[in-house]
């Protein structure tokens, strides 16, 4: 069985057009080139939820647009179900559902149902099929109550769900989601993540490629991911594998009552974030491996303190990038 998505040495360079003023000033000058992707390689297995993690400008959207046949790569190749996106765009489009990050991309004066019916025809569905598929999807996306209202009256969450419904009209095996929770409140985002995992992936077995800059979101729903920065793959593998292999200390949030004075120890450093009477909230940066953490907790207990909570704090995306930059290169994980 071919990979659901395969990117091999994929590259994209945007050539910026020169303004008339610039051409007059330097008639033989070279246009500025911006590398959006360079040597990208990864493989997404059928039925997998795979993440593209990176900050703005890292190349996530360009990568998704190449897979949706909106942008042609300059180098390498990208395959969906074994089909080259640059050569057979119509066959690829039948296999890919693309959810854009732009929530405007509907006709505002049409209802949600009319919008879906129109796009269903563009996906090649017959009239009866388009009607039944539209009804099925508005129910599945919990939009049945508002399906006959104009799109302009929808909330951000509804717009996002309608965008997902649109991408599912032709029942594609592969779904590309470009920051689907970006404009949602935390509760709506949580519901959407659950829907992606339970309905789209587990129940219907779709392969999902999710672009996000939210590490927590990636960890919650992606089996594996690639970390992109300035168009290059920094790491790939599971979130645990990516963060575990990073240099630097692990961070734990501790809530301690009656925190004793602790002797200096090179294996940890403590930062008291807040004191509320005899209760202290501490950010503890501890050497990896677990021994140092055990020793720290024991010292606190031996000193008369009471540990009320201890939880690991995941590094932010920026911290991960900083640590990857600082650390030695690691081989890619399968």
């Amino acid at each position, binding site marked *: 069985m071919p990979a659901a998505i395969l990117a091999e040495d994929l590259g994209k360079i*945007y050539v910026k057009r020169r303004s008339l003023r610039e051409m007059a000033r330097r008639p033989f000058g070279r246009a500025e080139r911006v590398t959006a992707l360079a040597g990208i390689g990864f493989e997404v297995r059928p039925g997998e939820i795979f993440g593209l993690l990176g900050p703005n400008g890292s190349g996530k959207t*360009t990568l998704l647009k190449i897979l949706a046949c909106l*942008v042609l790569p300059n180098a390498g190749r990208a395959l969906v179900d074994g089909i080259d996106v640059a050569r057979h765009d*119509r066959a690829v489009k039948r296999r890919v559902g693309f959810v854009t990050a732009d929530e405007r*991309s509907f*006709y505002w004066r049409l209802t949600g149902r009319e919008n879906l019916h*129109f796009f269903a025809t563009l996906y090649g569905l017959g009239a009866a099929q388009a009607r039944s598929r539209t009804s099925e999807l508005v129910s599945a996306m919990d939009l049945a109550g508002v399906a006959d209202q104009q799109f302009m009256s929808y909330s951000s969450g509804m717009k996002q769900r309608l965008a997902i419904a*649109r991408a599912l009209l*032709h029942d594609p095996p592969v779904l590309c989601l470009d920051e689907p929770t970006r404009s949602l409140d935390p509760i709506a985002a949580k519901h959407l993540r659950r829907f992606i995992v339970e309905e789209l992936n587990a129940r219907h077995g779709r392969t999902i490629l999710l672009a996000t800059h939210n590490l927590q979101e990636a960890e919650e729903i992606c089996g594996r991911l690639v970390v992109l920065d300035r168009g290059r793959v920094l790491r790939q593998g599971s979130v645990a594998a990516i963060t575990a292999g990073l240099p630097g200390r692990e961070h734990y949030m501790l809530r301690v009552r009656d925190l004793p004075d602790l002797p200096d120890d090179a294996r940890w450093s403590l930062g008291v974030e807040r004191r509320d009477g005899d209760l202290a909230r501490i950010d503890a940066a501890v050497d990896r491996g677990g021994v140092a953490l055990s020793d720290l907790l024991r010292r606190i207990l031996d000193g008369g303190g009471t540990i009320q909570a201890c939880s690991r704090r995941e590094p932010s995306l920026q911290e991960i990038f900083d640590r990857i930059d600082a650390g030695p290169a690691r081989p890619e994980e399968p």
Partner: protein
Amino acid sequence: MRVLRTLQAFLKRDFLIEVSYRTSFVLQFLGIMFSVLIWFYISRVVAAPPTTPGLDGLDYFAYVLLGLAFFHYLSAAMMSFAGKVRNEQVTGTLEAMLVTPTSVGTIVLGSSLWDFVLTSFKVVVYLLVGWLVFGVVIHLDSLLSCFLVLALTVLAFSGIGILSAALILYLKRGDPITSLVASLSALLGGVFYPPEDMPAWLGIGSRFLPITYALHALRRALLRGSRFAELLPDIEALVLFVAVLLPVGLLAFRFAVRKAREEGSLVQY
């Protein structure tokens, strides 16, 4: 079959959007009434005798009524393609359509189709007002020939319109071609006055515009009841325009789409 179904979906979409602006929809037709009324009184002031060169024995009001009505087709064919592409880019719906397996050509054609349908209604309203209110005699004997002339005119101007859409996709800016051709057509193409009435050095430019032949043939067919054979020279000229302009437009559009995909600027504006 699938293409027809898709085009029908575009028509339905644009009809629903159009009628959602009810007042504007009604006012468009009211505007036609005003326009015809204005030109009726202008023609009374002008009072050009039917012997005027180029009027071919026609009453000036009937002459200008046909010119006005069919100039809408020219505008629709030239402005609609680029205008719709631009509009879909701005509203973000172009990207949503381009990720579907429907071809770019069908998307552009479908997006413009409603404008042609609406224009056809407007032309019918123009002619009906002229006939019922102002007594202009319309001959319906050569209706089939009229449709042929109209189809060729729309195709010829669509070539320019599609070229304009290609420029919008590639350059992201309004192109100078359509406004130039539209202005020249209004100036030289016999919309408001016969080109024969102009100085020879200026009137000669009308020979290079498809609208000259289209209006000449349509006036002869609808106002004088001329037969197909009499319209043939104009039809041949229009076929030549279609043979040149349409392939140029389509090739330019294909090139623009390819370049925009390479540059990643397909949905930028």
